[in-house]
């Protein structure tokens, strides 16, 4: 596998390969590191961090839908201090980049988290798109003016490059993408989950205690690929593409559409070794196609 160049660069940070974990699907790395060496990944993106610990939403928090998952975790996490003191040290043991996904309830909270992260991590991903919390989250993420403002103010506090994670629950994702760029984002990641609902017809109750949740998994892949392609067409920022990637060929599809790197989310939930397997499958794909460097694949879509 050594003859193929898998390195990619996101805003000046070099990832040894384009495979990243999607926030919220591998915790903070402790658990899946029992299944494979996290040094195999381009980067690990941790579960959304808030300033103070959050207990998250009531269970049930997950439902299966056709080729997808609905979740309503609601940003359960132990807060910034715990992350800095515990998770971070563990992650540093691996030879991989660390992306801190931050999800403050207010602009100020996000600024404070970004400031205190300093350059303890390699990249910061600002989540303006979580559908599972009342304040913050999606309210920011669907309004281009808000996206621009929050990006600007958080960027100001960032010592490392800032990735803005976009919501797919919008009429035109190129609007929020451009707003993030204007606000000074160094990279974009997309897509977060689509808002969905499932009702148990035996009880007439929504399966999720939170009633609605975020839809992820292969079901949403065509929407994600379309949005990555649209955003790649309208901006020169590097993109971390995600949404339903479960194989190396899926990863290739996003890169062909214009993504620089890709994140694996729901696949980890089905198979803890998904990240590693997808990396190997992508390498096989590149070999089969005779492509020497993964960056040569980027944006090669041949529009009809």
């Amino acid at each position: 596998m050594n003859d193929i160049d898998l390195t990619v660069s996101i805003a000046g940070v070099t990832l040894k390969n384009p495979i990243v974990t999607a926030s919220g699907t591998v915790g903070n790395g402790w658990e899946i590191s029992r299944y494979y060496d996290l040094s195999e990944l381009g980067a690990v993106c941790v579960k959304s961090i808030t300033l103070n610990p959050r207990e998250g939403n009531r269970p049930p928090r997950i439902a299966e839908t056709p080729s997808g998952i609905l979740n309503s975790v609601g940003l359960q996490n132990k807060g910034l201090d715990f992350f800095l003191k515990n998770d971070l040290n563990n992650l540093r043991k691996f030879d991989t980049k660390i992306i801190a996904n931050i999800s403050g309830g207010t602009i100020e909270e996000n600024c404070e988290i970004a400031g205190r992260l300093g350059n303890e991590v390699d990249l910061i991903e600002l989540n303006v798109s979580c559908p599972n919390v009342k304040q913050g989250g999606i309210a920011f993420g669907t309004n281009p003016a808000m996206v621009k403002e929050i990006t600007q103010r958080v960027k100001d506090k960032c010592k490392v490059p800032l990735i803005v994670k976009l919501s797919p629950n919008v009429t035109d994702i190129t609007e929020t993408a451009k707003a993030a760029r204007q606000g000074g984002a160094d990279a974009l990641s997309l897509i977060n989950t689509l808002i969905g609902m499932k009702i148990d017809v035996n009880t007439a109750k929504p399966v999720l205690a939170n009633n609605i949740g975020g839809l992820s998994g292969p079901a949403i892949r065509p929407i994600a690929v379309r949005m990555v392609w649209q955003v790649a067409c309208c901006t020169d920022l590097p993109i971390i593409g995600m949404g339903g990637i479960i194989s190396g060929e899926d990863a290739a599809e996003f890169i062909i559409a214009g993504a620089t790197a890709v994140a694996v989310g729901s696949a980890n939930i089905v198979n803890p070794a998904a990240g590693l397997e997808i990396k190997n499958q992508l390498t096989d794909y590149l070999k089969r196609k005779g492509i020497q460097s993964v960056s040569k694949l980027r944006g090669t879509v041949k529009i009809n």
Partner: protein
Amino acid sequence: MKNICKIIKKTQLCKEVFDFEVEFSHRPLPGQFIHVLCGDGVFLRRPISICDYNEGILRFSFAVRGEGTKRLANHNEGDMLDILGPLGRGFDTGKSGEGTAVVVGGGIGIFPLYFLSKRIKTEAILGFRTKDAVIMEDDFKSVCSAVHIATDDGSYGFHGLVTDVLQGRLEKADVTSVYACGPMPMMKEIKRITEDMGIFCQLSLEQRMGCGIGACSVCVCKSKGEYKKVCQNGPVFNAREVDFDE
């Protein structure tokens, strides 16, 4: 760990309950579970308790409920299954040395208790809907000093709830530990009874799961005022520490 396991035996215990034996090389503890891929068209794994383990052969039993267990039940001897496990924290058997232990199971909750009963001296109280749903009675009889069966409709054994049987059994005052698995109302009642009487009690809880390994935070239950992950901090919890009123 992820394992591709061969099914070496498939039996049907009653109308909707199947029993599989698979080749499995990791030695599990009573109360642990496996997380199984059910087949094409079912995305998430399904958690199933380990019912028994013996020299490389793991046994599990499950009721057909929805799409996942239906697909799983379609497998035959010789087929391969993708299984993650053993997962979770099992029963704490240290506390059950001194007096008599009682396992209390309701419906599909009986399965992890069989594996446990093979390891400690215990009596069993097992509840079922009706006579036709009574399963594994002989299995439990071969490993327990006594087996009490209750059915909801009185068609077999005691007419009523396992908690009624338990309450009666506890009057003898020789029981020092209770291990239970079953529907929520039953577990709640057992927590109340054992707490009132000051008896050590562990419950094996159920919650809808994603990863099964503690990574996705979906499978929580309230324990001492905090959300704990059933797949990682459980599925077995000390009854005292479970907050049911959430």
